[in-house]
């Protein structure tokens, strides 16, 4: 079983919908003023999959998480458990969002150290730093 960590960009009710599908889901307990990097660290240290609508800023953080330890030769750098960015422009309800997150996990695709975004033509697609 995986645990989804929802930041404040996600509707609270997505957590309820994930619970109904048998998943653990936690809406962030961090203070409202917490920065995005604190959310990623909090989720990564617990092995939780971070879910956010903030693709712009989490792509930047994901890129740093991936590239800095290699460039700086830092051994033992932890993986994050995955970042998933559900789209907003497709009018997904909380139930649809939970369905698609459930399907991504059920697919068995690698989530660790990967950021997934949704493409209309291909569904969940790993994002790679340019």
């Amino acid at each position: 079983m995986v645990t989804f960590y929802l930041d404040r960009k996600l509707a609270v009710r997505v957590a309820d919908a994930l619970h109904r599908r048998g998943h653990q889901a936690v809406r962030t307990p961090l203070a409202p003023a917490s920065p995005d990097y604190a959310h990623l660290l909090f989720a990564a240290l617990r092995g939780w999959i971070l879910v956010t609508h903030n693709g712009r800023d989490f792509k930047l953080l994901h890129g740093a998480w991936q590239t800095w330890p290699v460039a700086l030769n830092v051994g033992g750098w932890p993986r994050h458990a995955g970042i998933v960015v559900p789209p907003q422009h497709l009018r997904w309800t909380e139930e649809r969002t939970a369905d698609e997150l459930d399907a991504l996990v059920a697919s068995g695709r690698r989530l660790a150290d990967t950021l997934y975004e949704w493409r209309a033509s291909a569904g969940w697609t790993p994002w790679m730093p340019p």
Partner: protein
Amino acid sequence: MNRAELIARYIEPDPWHPGPADVQVRGYGVPVWALVGHLPAVDYNPEQLARAYDLPLEAVEAALAYYEANRALIDGRLAANAAEPACAE
């Protein structure tokens, strides 16, 4: 409370993302753009939006008033998150 008062009461800058496109609901840390982005999913119903995010209805009304006054900014911020240009599924 008029629109300006509503915005002043509930909307504040995000200290980590300064700028008018990233303002958030005071005390809750929910960006206006995230609420606006979810609005179609609740059939543009402010009450449903408030329930979905567990926010006071007045705070949602403030966010929507801010959006009305800054539509292009918020739309641009939403577009920056998207994997591809907005289109029907």
